[in-house]
């Protein structure tokens, strides 16, 4: 319990350091652009592939579990749309990014710690926490919502292709289904969740990396912890945000 409290305290102390005034905004801007590429653009491929197959599977499972003449077939499209927008594109994407981006952040910062690169920054008079972590937080906050939107589009497209190819739904019914009773707020809800998850992924992973002590073994452990803790917090906040935003 004491360890949990001290780690939580340390996390917030680190955040205070991260959000202090940057020494040179132009250098931070350049660093943020770099992180947008590394943490954002480089995740497009994996998010697109996973979303496509996720959408495809949701459509097929909905179709095979609602083989009843009472249910109109366009409900398959509606089910696919709502599942993807409400849960899969935000939460599942966040869990995938916790694995990919989170481990990347923790291992990068952790390696910098054990190879004294962070000490070098501190000696120069640079606020190392802010310089290393703030651009990553900003980059994920800016780019992850775009990844979520991409995931929604690709996921629904995947569902449409799988459904029509397998012959479980016609193209017209699917398109009617994804337009039927559409609530635009669901997109807002999904984006709000994504923003929270993006902050959790970048800050928790950075925290794990920043306080690494030891060598490569500890960097590996920090990387694993970053993924585990980020994922747990994502799931916890998913419940809280759903209750707050949809009740």
């Amino acid at each position, binding site marked *: 319990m004491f360890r949990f409290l001290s780690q939580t305290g340390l996390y917030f102390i680190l955040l205070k350091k991260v959000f202090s005034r940057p*020494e*040179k905004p132009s*250098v931070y801007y350049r660093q943020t652009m*770099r992180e947008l590429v590394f943490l954002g653009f480089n995740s497009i491929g994996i998010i697109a592939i996973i979303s496509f197959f996720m959408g495809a599977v949701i459509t097929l499972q909905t179709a095979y579990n609602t083989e009843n003449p009472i249910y109109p077939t366009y409900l398959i499209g509606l089910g696919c749309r709502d599942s993807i927008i409400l849960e899969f594109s935000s939460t599942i994407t966040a869990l995938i990014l916790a694995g990919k981006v989170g481990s990347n952040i923790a291992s990068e910062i952790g*390696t*910098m710690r054990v*190879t*004294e*690169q962070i*000490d*070098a920054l*501190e*000696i*120069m*008079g*640079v606020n190392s926490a802010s310089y290393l972590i703030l651009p990553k937080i900003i980059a994920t906050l800016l780019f992850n919502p775009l990844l979520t939107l991409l995931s929604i589009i690709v996921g629904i497209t995947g569902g449409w292709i799988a459904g029509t190819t397998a012959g479980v739904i016609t193209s017209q019914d699917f398109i009617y289904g994804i337009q039927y009773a559409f609530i635009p707020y669901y997109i807002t809800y999904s984006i709000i969740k994504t923003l929270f998850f993006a902050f959790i992924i970048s800050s928790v992973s950075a925290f794990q990396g920043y306080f690494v002590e030891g060598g490569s073994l500890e960097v590996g452990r920090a990387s694993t912890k970053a993924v585990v803790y980020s994922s747990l917090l994502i799931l916890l906040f998913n419940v809280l945000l759903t209750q707050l935003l949809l009740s």
Partner: protein
Amino acid sequence: MIKVDNLYKKFNEQTVLDNISVKFDPGKTNLVIGRSGSGKTVLLKSIIGLHEVDSGEIWYDDILFNELDFKARKSIRKEIGMLFQGSALFDSLTVEQNVMFPLDMFTGKPIEEKLERVNFCLKRVNILNANQLYPAELSGGMKKRVAIARAISLNPKYLFCDEPNSGLDPLTAILIDELIKELTEEYCMTTIVNTHDMNSVMKIGDKIMFIHEGAKCWEGSKEEILNSDCDTLNDFIFANALARQLRQSLK
């Protein structure tokens, strides 16, 4: 000038710095020698402020450094250059970007001027045509020289070197030593070098302090070190067979 008075530092219950007092002069290469684990690196990191000391005073000229807060320390840290044992170059930046980093961070100079300064520093440490290489593409000796170039890019008043020769062959080690000495005299820096390399001691040690188990055991010059009556120091100096044979033959 850097002065340290009655420095104490403990990690858990283990004392790693035990009442260290010493003065490091400007324009001189001041060496801190001692066995591995004797407290050299902790002393260096304490002087820089990476470790907080339990008691004692650290003076940079007439400023009491360890009483300053983080913001106030920044102004002094901008005058510090540091060469780490593993070079600590930023992996994601090229050689040119590494050396330019302090200039980017702390000067508002136009890019042409910064590039000119970068090229000057790299030329000064004999690194040519490597501006666009990444640290992973450099040899150990080149990494150290780039790290020195980065350390001197802002014309520091104080230079700290932690085991600058570790992992280098004897010839490259001599080149690095000579470079540190030349730069110290050229810019009249207060240079502190941590080492356990006796070649360095005899070549560049203007002032030498020997520490053993966290305590200062001996202080003097390279001329005095061979005739010291400190047994622990003699054990350290004459630890290798060649040095022992030489001493025997001199006797």
